[in-house]
């Protein structure tokens, strides 16, 4: 059995418990054992790196050093922000030995950072380490019939120099995973637009405006629901949806799933275990589409001769 280190971060133990729970279900199904980093601390999130560079690196670094004490070669992180801070610290420390030496002194009591653990977001781990074929093989309850807009947000694939994963502008990894589960990923141009992030608390109007655009485009793409792999994206799109609808006088009714919730359903776990009660927008209408047949728009049929070597014969 494969074993990975796990950094849940604060939200997985609080507001996004349903993410945490379903990650565990998915990992179990895929025969991956998770070992939570003992005594982990806050990643620093947005606050640390807007205040102090040293603090922004030192907080994640302690977690990296703790992770290295476990004997696993990879650490997975469900929260996009935690992932971003850890990976940024790793990349910058690996590239800049001077910075590494300086920051190391801050966590010297825990040991020395050596840079031997790979850091992956949950999405990246599913896509790269599990693989689409293996995921497909575990699907017992395909979610076919669902049309889903995959929303990546800003941190899972950006900036490219840090994440080194998928496209920063039009990523497809999540789209491929939901298709492996049987669903249809809609063409969704706003998959990496900003949702407003933590302005949700300090200046909610910004979030209403930005997340509103995302919901509008998701609806326009024909999606029954949105899929995310980030607690803050989920919170903004789900929790603020009623406010958005009210402000702009529209009706979206778009449930916002965690990717792992849908994976768990497809892997045969009962719906009741998904903690859907924590969602603001009810999910039932979207889940009701499971099993429906999606009519594909008819494409012009190409003659078999036309396929050869770009040329076509009349």
């Amino acid at each position: 059995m494969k074993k990975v280190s796990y950094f849940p971060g604060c939200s997985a133990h609080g507001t996004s418990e349903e993410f945490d729970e379903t990650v565990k279900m998915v990992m179990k199904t895929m025969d991956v054992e998770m070992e939570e980093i003992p005594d982990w601390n806050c990643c620093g999130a947005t606050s640390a790196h807007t205040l102090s560079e040293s603090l922004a690196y030192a907080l994640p670094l302690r977690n990296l050093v703790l992770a290295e004490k476990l004997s696993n070669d990879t650490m997975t992180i469900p929260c996009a922000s935690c992932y971003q801070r850890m990976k940024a610290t790793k990349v910058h420390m690996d590239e800049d030995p001077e910075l590494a030496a300086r920051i190391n002194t801050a966590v010297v009591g825990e040991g020395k950072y050596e840079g031997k653990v790979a850091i992956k977001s949950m999405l990246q781990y599913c896509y790269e380490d599990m693989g689409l074929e293996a995921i497909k093989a575990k699907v017992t309850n395909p979610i076919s019939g669902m049309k889903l807009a995959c929303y990546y947000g800003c941190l899972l694939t950006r900036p490219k120099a840090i994440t080194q994963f998928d496209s920063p502008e039009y990523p497809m990894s999540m789209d491929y995973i939901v298709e492996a589960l049987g669903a249809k990923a809609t063409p969704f141009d706003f998959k990496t637009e900003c949702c407003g992030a933590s302005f949700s608390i300090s200046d909610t109007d910004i979030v209403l405006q930005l997340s509103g655009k995302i919901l509008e485009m998701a609806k326009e793409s024909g999606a029954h629901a949105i899929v995310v792999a980030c607690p803050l994206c989920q919170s903004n799109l789900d929790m603020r949806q009623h406010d958005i609808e009210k402000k702009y006088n529209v009706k979206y009714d778009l449930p916002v799933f965690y990717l792992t919730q849908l994976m768990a359903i497809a892997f045969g776990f009962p719906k009741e275990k998904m903690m859907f009660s924590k969602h603001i927008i009810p999910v039932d209408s979207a889940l009701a589409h499971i099993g429906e047949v999606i009519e594909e728009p008819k494409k012009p049929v190409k003659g078999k001769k036309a396929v050869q070597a770009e040329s076509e014969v009349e």
Partner: protein
Amino acid sequence: MARVGVFVCFCGANIADFVDVPTVVEEAKKIREVKFAVDYKYMCSDPGQQMIRDAIVQYRLTSIVVAACSPRMHEKTFRKALSDAGMNPYLLEVANIREHSSWVHQKDKKAATEKAGDLVRMAVAKSIANEQLHEISVPVTKRALVIGGGIAGIQAALDIADARIPVTLVERSPSIGGRMAQLDETFPTLDCSQCILTPKMVDVASHPYIELIPYSEVIELNGYVGNYKARIRKKASYVNFKSCTGCGACWQKCPVKVPNEYNMGIDKRKAIYTPFPQAVPNKPVIDAEHCTMLLKGKCGICAKFCEKGAIDFKMVDEVIEREIGAVVVATGYDLWDATPYEEYGVGRYKDIINSLEFERMVSANGPTGGLPIRPSDGKVPKSVVFIKCVGSRDKAKGIEFCSKICCMYTAKHAILLHHKVHDSRAYIFYMDIRAAGKGYEEFVNRAQVETGAVYLRGRVSKIYQKGDKLMVRGEDGNLGQEVEVEADLVVLATAIVPYKENPALARLLGISYDKYGYLSEAHPKLRPVETAKAGIFLAGCTQAPKDIPETVAQASACAAKVCGLFAGDTMKKDPMVSTVNKEFCSGCQNCVTVCPYQAIVTEDIPLGHGAKETRTVAKINEGVCQGCGSCVAICRSMAINLAGFTDPQIINEIVAI
């Protein structure tokens, strides 16, 4: 006894500000062999040169040291001064106290002065061992090879041929004309590109001094300036041009359709085709990659309909050789593939096209009959967004340079759009408007005023689809706010990049290229058409992005260079070349391996006087040798001598410091 004259230059303030020139003169005077030393404000000026000429006569000098700028700058000038005074010009040594001292030691005048003194001592010591050398004469083959048949190659070929020098023009596609043949109208006068180009194309075909070899590529170039030998592969056209009348029955009947390169793939051509109706030569070729007959041995319809029996499926590639004296490279440009602009949805949206595609659409002989259309539904667009600097001036996407012509052709596109679709509007997102050129600024103003084109200063950050419109979101920097424009069609002014096979061609020709694949000129200011390799010249966008007038000017400049090179029956060449002392040569051939110019071959000489047995020794072709000295350094038996840099000269320099 050597009698050396030393001439130290102030170079205005360039040297004098950081080197104490009079001290350098005093130091020079202390050297035993120095019979005369003097300073002057500008030694390269005529009075400065006159000082040298006078001193040579007055002090009976045997060698001259000029302490001034780099020898790359004025060595020739001072050598000429020596000749004028009746002295062998190679008795000159230049001590570079500007680039090597004053410019690089601006913070320490004392040290800079000391270093200048050392450089002068070295040069004096070296000059004492200088020998009289004489220019080498090399025979010249008076035929030029022009690679590329776009407007650059056409102009260069015509200008050279008009001087009654034979030209071989090699073009890789079936017709000459290049990019300019694809353009509709040209800025800033809006004259029809075809109308001004096709007469020149016809002139090329009919010129008695031009040999046009279309559908072919240069595959090898050997030799040296004035004496190159080129091997050219003529791709099999499968059509006998001698009997073909160009009637067109073959391509009308050919059943195979292939994306049409001339129309940027907007429509289809046949597998047997001429690229466009005005093609020169106006003879079709068969595209072997798509012809059913050549691929599978079935069809042959073209041959059935050809009344002249000109189709020959058994034709094979042919390699021909030409002896030439000079080469003009004019391989042109491509448009950068904008796929990395994922935020624009390039590749996802059909209604995003590049500028050449737009050019073909609005062209009178284009695939849409001169009307711009949306590729998705064929409708005529009313709202068209043009985005400039797509790829250009964008470090993140890998191209830092400005593509130079996009500001102008985008203004032209706005005007053409207005001419073709009266109730349309152009929105142009730009970073800067670079309209430096005769009549260019006026032209951009015309686009703004006459057509009502909306110029928005700012970058586009995203394009997304909403219904059947493309939403273009960008910044209006003048208003300091975000804007969204609803577009029917988006045209990207993608960066100009050099012909993709430039690096391979450069290696084949032995010339250098930059990180983008542009071929490098010898000097960015003073030798913009020459390459570092003598006898090879550059014209057009193969060197850097440029517009038609500039391309034509550079092509004509190439022609002038070629004519100058061919002005005499022989060419003069610096005598700083290596020679092999056969007595000492052990025949190890290390020099053959290290020579970067393939100037060294081997020869067999008798083992002793009158002996039948032979041994192998190195032999240097002085016409090819560039005097780099690599062979001297590698030679284990010290059998190679480089004139002007002999062992005694170098040892003298070392001893002097």
